[in-house]
């Protein structure tokens, strides 16, 4: 090694200008190739995953075509598979979750980014990060033993009593169902919304706030009418990120949604989600078509989360660029 290095300096310190042979001798090319193999394997695994999902669902896709998405009979005996109830359940629970999580999450993010002193903000953010680390199955356990009984005894009857005239709150109080799953999901995605929104809010340049305040705006007005709109794209990004996470969530939802493929306007009704039906039926789908239909559901889930994640990232990157651009 010592010998090589005494020769090389004439070529200058920049790697690119060394000859291929000298780089090979020093091991740079080998290191490059080895690390390249590792990096390439990431791409390979991902491609393989998409391929397996696509290949594994070929029969179902050909047999049902587009009907798969808008028919609602899921009948393993007569081999009829329509995914609408699962898609519906997934979307409804995610919507309920966002309805709760978005105002709470953004409110908390505003507090952390705009009001709280840095020390308090960092401490709270630390707890929020820990909250994001709680595994799904633990939310499921708390859902089953704490939230479901609460919903059955108090929340469902109260909703039926006060808002029972709405089609949203009909039917018997099972405790499990769309609403319960939505609430559990909301608790699970709030940390994501808070963390990312706080980050984008913090990236809004200081002078934006000062300008608003100097024009006589109250603190809230400067926050709500100047800072938040500035960070709007990034906040939407955090919401899409949360949505992607909510759609793919499996264990907690399986444990509290009721596992019944129904399409009902009532949020109190039990339902089913894509991830939950895969978890319940994948190991036991006897017919080839049944298995393939489940894999197709996996594919649908994959595509949905892929689109949402991509969109979210774009929005978040755009906001932080805008923030740093304005600062410069």
């Amino acid at each position, binding site marked *: 090694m010592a010998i090589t290095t005494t020769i090389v300096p004439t070529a200058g310190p920049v790697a690119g200008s060394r000859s291929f042979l000298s780089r090979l001798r*020093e091991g740079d090319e080998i290191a490059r190739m080895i690390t390249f193999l590792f990096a390439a394997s*990431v791409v390979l695994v991902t491609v393989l995953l998409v391929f*397996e999902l696509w290949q594994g669902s070929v029969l179902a896709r050909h047999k049902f075509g587009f009907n798969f998405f808008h028919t609602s009979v899921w009948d393993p005996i007569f081999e009829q598979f329509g995914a609408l109830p699962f898609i519906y359940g997934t979307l409804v629970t995610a919507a309920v979750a966002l309805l709760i999580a978005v105002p709470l*999450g953004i409110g908390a993010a505003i507090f952390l980014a705009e009001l709280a002193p840095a020390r308090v903000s960092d401490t709270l953010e630390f707890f929020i990060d820990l909250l994001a680390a709680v595994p799904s199955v633990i939310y499921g356990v*708390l859902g089953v033993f704490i939230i479901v009984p609460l919903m059955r005894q108090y929340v469902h009857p109260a909703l039926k009593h006060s808002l029972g005239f709405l089609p949203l709150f009909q039917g018997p109080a099972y405790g499990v169902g769309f609403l319960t799953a939505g609430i559990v999901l909301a608790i699970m995605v709030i940390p994501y919304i808070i963390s990312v929104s706080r980050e984008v809010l913090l990236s809004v340049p200081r002078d934006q706030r000062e300008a608003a305040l100097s024009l006589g705006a109250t603190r809230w007005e400067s926050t*709500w009418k100047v800072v938040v709109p500035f960070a709007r794209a990034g906040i939407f990004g955090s919401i899409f990120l949360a949505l992607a996470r909510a759609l793919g969530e*499996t264990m907690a939802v399986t*444990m509290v949604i009721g596992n019944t493929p129904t399409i009902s306007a009532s949020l109190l009704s039990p339902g089913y989600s894509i991830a939950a039906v895969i978890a319940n039926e994948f190991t036991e789908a006897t017919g080839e078509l049944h298995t393939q239909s489940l*894999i197709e559901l996996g594919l649908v889930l994959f595509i949905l989360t892929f689109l949402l994640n991509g969109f979210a990232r774009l929005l978040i990157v755009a906001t932080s660029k805008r923030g740093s651009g304005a600062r410069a």
Partner: protein
Amino acid sequence: MSLRLRWRKFVSGFMLTMTGVCALVAVSVLFLILGYLAIHGGASVNWNFFTKLPVPVGETGGGMANAILGSAKMLLLATLFGVPIGFFGAIYLAEFSGSTTAFFVRYAADLLNGVPSIVIGIFAYSLVVHPFRQYSTLAGGFALGLMMIPITLRSTEEFLRGVPNPLREAAMALGASKWKTIATVIVPAAYRGILTAILLAFARVAGETAPLLFTALGNQFWSPGWTHPTASLPVMIYTYALAPYDDWHRQAWAAGLVLLVLILVINIVARAILSRGIAVPRS
């Protein structure tokens, strides 16, 4: 003060208070979770829980020793499989690659990161379980390892990029080859960050349940070697919580407490490692 101004001040104060309430509610959830688990699980975490095998259905007693070992074995495999790929892949991205390759690798990693865990389960089943006709520790470890790759890769890359360029240039100016620079200067400089990233990835998959349902299955005995079905803590929590037996509920709470404490401790340690180092980059 005009009425209007007073009103605006009131709205401002009110809304700002509300944001504080939101933050309080969000954070208190963590303590509620910890509190419930401590109350219901605390009394059930005993020596048997860590040393005994599960007893036949409906009988009282027993523990989850096999599930704890099963989880440990799968996490070990996951780390051995996921971390090298993520780590060396990140070195390639940060130090060697051109922008087009880097784009594809990063894109693939982000894609993989977003894949719902249940879909990872399907993938591991069709790639490992189905061809070898065997549910196994190996398959479970593979599924978890897969989930560790993107997290390790993306954060390691960020930390490597965080190493100031002058350090690189100084090493190269002294005549060190590129790989030597990476091994002796860049990686050690980003050491804390990388360790944090690996710990966080580990904590994230330690609680994963869905990918194990179709890969590790379960086992009421010890699972010998690597090629047999194995019990795991998260799956045990799932099945025990849904069963009708009070004694199983008690154990599910206990297992939940153990799992959560483990994960939170890893998270706290990971952040403590960083606390006096570089700031955590967010992906």
